[in-house]
């Protein structure tokens, strides 16, 4: 792993060994193979197909992963698929990140990129096919050489054998590469899997990440590089008028300061990161705030509230019955009404944004980045620098988390890096570094949301009328993906998890957009990050109004004969059973349940909390049940559930980005306190056995965590929490 991740080292070692066989897909999606030197296949200027699997003359197999690794396990997951089909020895398979190339598309979005919990779902067949094709070619080559039928050859741990003959893959690379890959290679039957579904397959990135050897973009240093930080407007939409550098000149290592060509800030160049940070502190800039957003959070909340009161702009459920359903819900003899508010949230991945742009000898560029969206970053950098796209190479590194932040339709930090590169003359490599303060004040937040619901319970104890109004700032409107997500004015991400709820509910849903110059972005689980909370707290409130147990009430709104609803019910029952739902709890403890389907994956969670003598809440345990179809790497799935639960809990407990007169109030982690180890509950994850196709796991663990906690706190204290974060709304944590 460590050597193969380093591209230069990799190329050298392969070059010395000679021939490499590569199997991949061409531009039209067909399997293709060739015999080549690795240098050619990794360059984005080469042929029309790109390798997914490479086999060197020494038998080393390298899986080229098209999805970057931000911790979600792609280097392990995609490698598992190839290793399974090729019958490789797990410890010996190497991994390399794919270069930026149009053929490495994410089949879910038609361009190269990672997000939406799609990596495994869209790679499952592709990587298996590439592995199976490679194995088949090697077997055919061996059969020819040995004069036996292909069926007489077995493969185990990367070794071919037949009778008394055995050979490593390397021996047949040359011959196999001359064969044509099967159009549709025969894939293994699931009953023969030895790696897919194996309970504990060691992560491919563990060794590098526990010894300090894993290389992140933050660690890149290239010759003659200058470091740059950017002084930005404290308010969104502020434009640079002028700036004064004189004090910065006394900082050792200060090189220069230049206005960014778009007047969005001052680029401060220095010979080290620290010198740039220090010099930036002494530069004084004057901003034109005439177009800036100068509102504070209280004003924004008032605007959200006014929009909730007004008639919704869009009739999402399109039945023209909103007023009628709302009146029926309000008039029911048993009813529930509640308003919900969700704050702005920063992603705050552990590694702040960073990008290195390095000029190459032939007038091209090398972009060093933990790149999540090459499909946008690559053309964006080409457009700004006027360097032809084919002369730009993106080198992908491990990314120190993302949670949505690095997948930016505007490629915001790459744009800054490219502008800073140009402003210095375009001849010297620049490394743009964001500090944590830049990160928290930098926008692209999870939008604020407000929800109002009125629910009427019928004579049968089920929901008879459910009317809901949502107010949200659209993530997709005005962006490059608008046409995929916005239909008839409704940004689906504003209503996902509500409009498509798997529950059988007589629902009428209205939506009103909130407009603001502040950039917003998807944040782990996108709209589900708030709709899961709203829906599942409401279901709990409705169950109580109906006088029903929360699990039984939910089941009563699911038709288990329907596949989708059956899977929802399945995880609900599994989580309830594993958590001992219905068993007695001692005084001062409470249990709450929530479920949510997102990204094709079904998750239910039970939270258990206890109160100390001062009424402060401890989260003792979360029991989680997940149905993500075929579980390729069960331990990675458990890790993603644990991580998403922790990330979600931290946010609902105490995180929010607030503004005062347009300026973000949270400076650094002490004001945007991350979840800490002492807050972390015990987490017990159960994976539903399944042979359905795999769905994503990076995000779906998050939506049920907040409402399960809220429902548990209600059970323990009688307090309903419909405004977040909890610590700003009367809840203390121990």
């Amino acid at each position, binding site marked *: 792993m460590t050597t193969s991740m380093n591209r230069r080292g990799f190329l050298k070692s392969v070059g010395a060994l000679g021939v490499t066989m590569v199997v991949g897909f061409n531009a039209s999606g067909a399997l293709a193979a060739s015999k080549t030197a690795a240098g050619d296949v990794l360059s984005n200027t080469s042929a029309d197909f790109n390798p997914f699997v490479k086999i060197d003359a020494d038998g080393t197999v390298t899986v080229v992963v098209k999805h970057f690794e931000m*911790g979600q396990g792609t280097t392990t997951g995609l490698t598992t698929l190839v290793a399974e089909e090729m019958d490789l020895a797990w410890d010996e398979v190497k991994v390399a990140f794919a270069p930026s190339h149009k053929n490495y598309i994410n089949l879910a979005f038609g361009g190269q990129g990672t997000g939406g919990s799609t990596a495994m779902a869209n790679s499952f067949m592709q990587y298996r096919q590439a592995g199976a094709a490679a194995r088949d070619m090697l077997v055919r080559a061996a059969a020819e050489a040995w004069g036996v039928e292909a069926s007489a050859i077995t493969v185990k741990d990367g070794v071919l054998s037949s009778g008394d003959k055995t050979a490593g893959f390397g021996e047949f690379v040359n011959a196999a590469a001359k064969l044509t890959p099967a159009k549709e290679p025969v894939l293994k039957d699931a009953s023969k899997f030895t790696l897919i579904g194996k309970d504990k397959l060691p992560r491919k990135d563990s060794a*590098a990440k526990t010894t300090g050897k894993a290389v992140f973009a933050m660690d890149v240093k290239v010759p003659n590089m200058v470091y740059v930080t950017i002084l930005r407007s404290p308010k969104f939409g502020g434009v640079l008028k002028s700036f004064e550098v004189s004090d910065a000149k006394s900082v050792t290592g200060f090189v220069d300061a230049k206005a960014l060509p778009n007047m969005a800030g001052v680029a401060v160049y220095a010979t080290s990161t620290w010198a740039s940070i220090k010099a930036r502190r002494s530069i004084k800039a004057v901003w034109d705030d005439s177009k800036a957003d100068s509102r504070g959070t209280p004003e924004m909340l008032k605007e959200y509230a006014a929009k909730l009161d007004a008639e919704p702009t869009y009739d999402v459920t399109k039945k023209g019955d909103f007023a009628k359903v709302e009146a029926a819900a309000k008039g029911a003899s048993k009813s529930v009404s509640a308003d919900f508010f969700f704050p702005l949230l920063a992603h705050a991945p*552990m590694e702040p944004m960073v990008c290195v742009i390095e000029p190459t000898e032939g007038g091209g560029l090398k972009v060093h980045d933990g790149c999540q969206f090459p499909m946008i970053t690559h053309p964006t950098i080409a457009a700004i620098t006027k360097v032809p796209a084919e002369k730009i190479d993106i080198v992908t590194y491990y990314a120190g988390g993302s949670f949505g932040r690095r997948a930016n339709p505007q490629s915001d930090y790459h744009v800054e890096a490219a502008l800073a590169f140009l402003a210095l003359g375009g001849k010297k490599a620049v490394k743009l570094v964001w*500090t944590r303060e830049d990160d928290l004040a930098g926008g692209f937040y999870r939008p604020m949301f407000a929800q109002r619901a009125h629910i009427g319970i019928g004579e049968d104890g089920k929901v008879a009328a459910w009317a809901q109004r949502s107010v949200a700032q659209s993530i997709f409107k005005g962006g490059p993906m608008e046409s995929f997500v916005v239909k008839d004015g409704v940004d689906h991400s504003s209503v996902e998890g509500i409009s498509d709820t798997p529950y059988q509910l007589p629902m009428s849903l209205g939506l009103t957009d909130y407009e603001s110059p502040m950039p917003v972005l998807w944040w782990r689980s996108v709209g589900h990050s708030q709709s899961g909370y709203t829906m599942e707290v409401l279901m709990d409130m409705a169950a109580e109004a109906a006088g029903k147990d929360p699990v039984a009430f939910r089941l009563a709104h699911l038709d288990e004969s329907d596949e989708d609803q059956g899977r929802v019910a399945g995880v609900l029952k599994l989580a309830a059973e594993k958590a001992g739902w219905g068993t007695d709890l001692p005084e001062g403890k409470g249990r709450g349940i929530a479920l949510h389907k997102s990204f094709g994956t079904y998750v239910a969670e039970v939270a258990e909390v206890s109160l100390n003598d001062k009424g402060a809440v401890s989260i003792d345990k979360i029991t989680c049940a997940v149905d993500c179809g075929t579980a390729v790497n069960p331990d990675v799935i458990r890790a993603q559930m644990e991580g998403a639960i922790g*990330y979600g809990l931290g946010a609902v407990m105490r995180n929010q980005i607030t503004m005062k007169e347009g300026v973000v109030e949270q400076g650094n982690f002490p004001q945007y306190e991350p979840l800490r180890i002492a807050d972390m509950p015990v987490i017990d994850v159960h994976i539903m056995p399944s042979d359905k196709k795999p769905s994503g796991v990076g995000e779906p663990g998050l939506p049920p965590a907040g409402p399960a906690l809220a429902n548990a706190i209600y059970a323990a204290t009688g307090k309903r929490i419909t405004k977040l974060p909890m610590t700003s709304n009367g809840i203390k944590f121990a």
Partner: protein
Amino acid sequence: MSIQLKINGETRQVEADGDTPLLWVIRDELELTGTKFGCGVASCGACTVHLNGKPQRSCILPVSAIGESEVTTIESATTPQAKAVQAAWQELDVVQCGYCQSGQIMSAIGLLSDNAKPTDNEIDAFMNGNACRCATYHRIRAAIHRASEILEA
């Protein structure tokens, strides 16, 4: 100014202003990039190194204040505690993005060097300054117990 640093068993000469945080000298000058930058204000622990064997946040330590102290970074963590922690981390696959993990590991080594058999509460108290945005905490706790077992064996 020219400063002498005892780091990872060597004496190194670096050019830096005295107020430069040790973190940036380690990363940018000495190119030991296993030690990470996460906040710069001693609130995340990504920059944790050992000073005379004790975990310290290198992002707020001016390089001029190090003097004769011995600095150890993840690249040179080789004590029995270090080996046990790394082995346990790998056995339980603690890491996700990995960016906080050098710091987590340096803190965990410090904890086990002082307290060979910490309880959950002691782990939580000692490790609370090491943030992990991927929330790998559940496994960090388990891995520290596992490292403690490895050391005992």
